[in-house]
């Protein structure tokens, strides 16, 4: 593989790792604040899965670029993080968090199924391992959206509002940067645009079962993949990076 290509693979692993890192960050904020103790535990579980995925992906990227997983996780500037806007949205209420997790994990399941077939063996292995995890997230969040949608009047309203509010951040999942397209053509990256139809199917089915309406506004936000984030991202990073910025070059 050429050096340029290796660099592109590192960028790709970093991009995927950023999604996992920020998903994990937000999920971890629930760890003692969820509606029941069982859900505290479940949310920590999901958070741990994503943090684990981030570690593997950053480690792989670092092997190519000569960095550590923590260099990559902690020592970049906001615009160098390429996570989807969806991942950085705040937790708000349980409904919002479940909507986020559902939309993302429905995507992630389809994504990792394809990544398993990557010509890059490391990415394929990470895909295989991660698939099991996101399948659980998908089931967990699906069940919750059904409970909320088909629970009480209040929960139905909140779930619908959550779906409506999160919706505009889902389109970005199916967009490709140029370097991703190149890698996809080589069978290394996943062409995420091809996952949209299947994702729509999963979403439509779940929303129907949950007695929730698919939002009509199809205008989609983007920017995260180009490093243009929401105002939430800077606050995430000021906490995430604080120790590494204050105490550079230490062992922890």
């Amino acid at each position, binding site marked *: 593989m050429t050096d340029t290509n290796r660099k592109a693979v590192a960028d790709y692993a970093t991009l995927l790792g950023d999604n996992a*890192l920020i998903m994990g*960050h937000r999920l*971890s*904020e629930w*760890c*003692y*604040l*969820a*509606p*029941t*103790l*069982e*859900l*505290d*535990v479940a949310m*920590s*579980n999901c*958070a*741990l899965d994503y*943090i*684990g995925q*981030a*570690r593997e992906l*950053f480690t792989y990227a670092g092997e190519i670029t000569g960095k550590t*997983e*923590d260099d990559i*996780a*902690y020592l970049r500037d906001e615009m160098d993080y390429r996570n989807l806007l969806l991942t950085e949205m705040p937790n708000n*209420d*349980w*409904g919002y968090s479940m909507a986020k997790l559902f939309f993302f994990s429905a995507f992630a399941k389809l994504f990792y199924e394809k990544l398993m077939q990557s010509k890059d063996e490391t990415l394929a292995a990470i895909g295989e391992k991660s698939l099991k995890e996101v399948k659980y997230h998908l089931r967990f969040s699906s069940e919750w959206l*059904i*409970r*909320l949608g*088909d*629970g*009480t009047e*209040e*929960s139905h309203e*909140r779930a619908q509002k959550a779906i409506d509010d999160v919706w505009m951040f889902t389109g970005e999942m199916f967009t490709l940067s140029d370097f991703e397209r190149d890698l996809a053509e080589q069978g290394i990256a996943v062409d995420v645009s091809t996952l949209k139809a299947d994702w729509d199917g999963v979403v439509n089915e779940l929303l129907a079962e949950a007695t929730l309406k698919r939002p009509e506004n199809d205008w989609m936000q983007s920017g995260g993949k180009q490093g243009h984030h929401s105002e939430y991202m800077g606050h*995430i990073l000021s*906490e*995430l990076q*604080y*120790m*590494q910025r204050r*105490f550079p070059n*230490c*062992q*922890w």
Partner: protein
Amino acid sequence: AQLEKQFQEKIDADIKVEAQDWMPEAYRKTLVRQMSQHAHSEVIGMQPEGNWITRAPSLRRKAILLAKIQDEGGHGLYIYCAAETLGTSRAEMIEQLHAGKAKYSSIFNYPALTWADIGTIGWLVDGAAITNQVSLAKGSYGPYSRAMIRICKEESFHQRQGYELLLTLARGTDEQKAMVQESVNRFWWPSLMMFGPSDKDSAHSAQSMKWKIKRKSNDQLRQEFIDATVPQAEFLGITLPDPDLKWNEETGHYDHGEIDWEEFHNVIHGNGICNKQRMETHIKSHEDGAWVREAATAYAEKQKAKKEAAA
């Protein structure tokens, strides 16, 4: 009286009491109080450590910390379940906590201020908890005793992780070393207080010992903890903040200075810096989650009704 006699004989013979067995009301009450307090402690103890999840300085440490807090939630669940075998529901126990009628370990009313605190909590706080729990694992009530056996294993793991975190800092920069010393300075005395008042001031202890709910006295356990911990502190290269702490050849134990019981009672009685914060956080998340729990119940009932209609 006959029943009570048989009960005590069973206890004396080291036969575990099970949920369906007859037991004196006072035994049941003491156990529920103790177990619910223990469960609440696991749950409230998630907060000080949770304060550092978003700021953990490496991904590895973040994962370890999160997994640890998750375990604490699991322990809470496990002990609530064991306590429910005695006829008090988790909802009731939480209500008592929120009403200020049930306690949790005072140690969690101290703030986690630095990253080193995450290590110190693992090493000293979990260390003290384990010393206690090893003894509780030999207690007379079966479900609690079995819960303790399982929990002790995980806690020992946490304690080692905490110590390892501190070791890493102690081998790091001067700033990191200073962070360890400062943290231990704050947590040493509160850790000793975790074993409760001195034997001479400890109410109910005699009966609890007789019922084998308690197997060792507060002071005994505290001494065990100190004896085990001092060499670990030496290995870390830190000083424990007690000028009177020294090896006593005669007794074969470490002597220690006087504990500030006024502070202990103040913190227990709501005057710690974090008491209000901890309780309001727990109450708020519980209230914020009410609609979710209601939705789950409503959905389950609908499903049940559907099934019955179909049957």
